[in-house]
């Protein structure tokens, strides 16, 4: 299943944020969206999830135009989104936070999803009964990644997953994403720099002032094909 953005333009209060962004993420591909703060990375993510309104352009999923589809219906396509600010519900436990997508969507088997996440990140099983408000920033990132993994059965959108976490935890998150290689999951990771993800991405799109200025092939296998 392929995600395709074609000439996407987004403005916020008349200020153009995305100026004709086009990119595609192939089935099972791990793509990076690299750019400085304010370049438009988060807006690209929000456009894919349907949270940002487009002024022009199309978003296609598996060939189908989903530009006008509501966010909750896009979530049902198997999109998992981890926003930069994590957005866990402070009054709910870690496990309840991760189960939210399953409660919102009957097609997701919450139990199975939890097993999958706990296999990948056993540390989350230990934090399961703790309220989200009692977690550190890094632990919240892990829990938010777990929630996105339960929701994202087809496409995983990670906004700054390594931002503001200790180097050891950043490596751990990077390992978790790398271990998804065999799952056939498409992954789009937005970040300011490549330091934590150079070995887990296959391609990177460099975004600047709302425009994709370059696409680099990182994975040696893909590079060989190119």
């Amino acid at each position, binding site marked *: 299943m392929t995600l395709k953005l074609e000439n996407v333009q987004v403005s916020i209060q008349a200020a153009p944020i995305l100026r004709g962004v086009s990119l595609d993420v192939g089935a099972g591909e791990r793509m990076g969206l690299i750019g400085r703060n304010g370049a438009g990375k988060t807006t690209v993510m929000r456009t894919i999830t349907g949270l940002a309104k487009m002024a022009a352009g199309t978003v296609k999923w598996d060939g189908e135009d989903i530009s006008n589809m509501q966010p909750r219906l896009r*979530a049902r396509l198997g999109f998992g989104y981890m926003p930069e600010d994590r*957005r866990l519900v402070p*009054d709910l436990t870690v496990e309840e936070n991760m189960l*939210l997508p399953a409660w*919102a969507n009957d097609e997701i088997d919450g139990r199975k999803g939890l097993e999958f996440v706990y296999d990948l990140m056993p540390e989350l099983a230990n934090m399961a009964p703790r*309220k989200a408000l*009692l977690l550190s920033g890094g632990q919240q990132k892990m829990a938010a990644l777990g929630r996105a993994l339960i929701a994202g059965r087809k496409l995983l959108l990670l906004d700054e997953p390594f931002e503001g976490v200790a180097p050891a935890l950043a490596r751990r998150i990077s390992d978790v994403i790398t271990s998804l290689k065999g799952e056939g999951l498409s992954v789009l990771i937005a970040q300011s720099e490549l330091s934590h993800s150079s070995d887990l991405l296959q391609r990177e799109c460099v975004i600047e002032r709302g425009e994709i200025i370059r696409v680099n092939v990182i994975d040696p296998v893909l590079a060989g094909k190119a």
Partner: protein
Amino acid sequence: MRSKLFLGATAAFAVLAAGSVILPDWAMFLCAMALAKGLVCLGIVGMMRGGVVSFGQGLYYCIGAYTATLVANSFGVSDIFLLTLLSALACLLVGMAFGPLLSSYRGIFFAMLSLALSMVLYGSLSKMSVIGGTDGLNIAAPTFLGWAPEGRPLQTALYIYVVAIVVIAGTLMRIYFDSEQGLITLATRDNELRVEYLGASVRNIMTYNYVFGAVLGGIGGTIAALALGHVDPEFAFWTTSGEFVFVAILAGYLSVPAVFVAAIILELVRSFSNLYFPNTWQLALGIFLLVVIVLLPNGLGSLVGRRKGNAA
């Protein structure tokens, strides 16, 4: 977890029902009215958990009270169970009609629109002399499955009935609050967008909560009408709705029993300040509310919530 809840509900019923033996008439009436109003407030708390507050719950309080009165006066129905059921049904239908409209609004717009609806009802009832106009209507004492008590036994039966309804409604709402749908409501309060991108419809959640609030409001109104023996358009007036919001804020959104405790406290403070400071009782009530809000910004329920949070 569920068995603990049922145990708690049974204990609450036993303690509250014991009041029918201990309490004098005036206190039993006061508690019955407070608990009936607490039901309305519980509906507001359900909405508060989703991040909106209705300033117009008087609408359903009034619809419930008038439905019971009109059915009783027009068709000679006096059975309290049937009257409660019919009023709840009427409020369910009205709630289902207005719910989808109101669920598109948030914050002050939701509050003002709900208030506007109740004031439209208030204005309409005040002008309709055929159903009493501003004087309202009287309603005869209810019967209980054919049993027609009078005097103290009537008051006791009515009190026990309110207690039973409160315990059942409170238990069901607690189950709902702790259910998947209820926890998604809590997530909505925190951030609506997150709930949308996780796949849930915030509008549907808001509609459900509004309809539950409508039904609870109708039941509360029916019981209040039967306890008072009289209904008038003041049931839908904005001050009545404001009182419900006061109780909901006093209780907070964390605990169901706190809603009824807050309702009883408010009734007691009002009654005693009215008795001892007849000319300045509103001042005493205002100071009391101010102190509670300053000391417990998340309401009385946060006393219990805080303990649970620390334990987690």
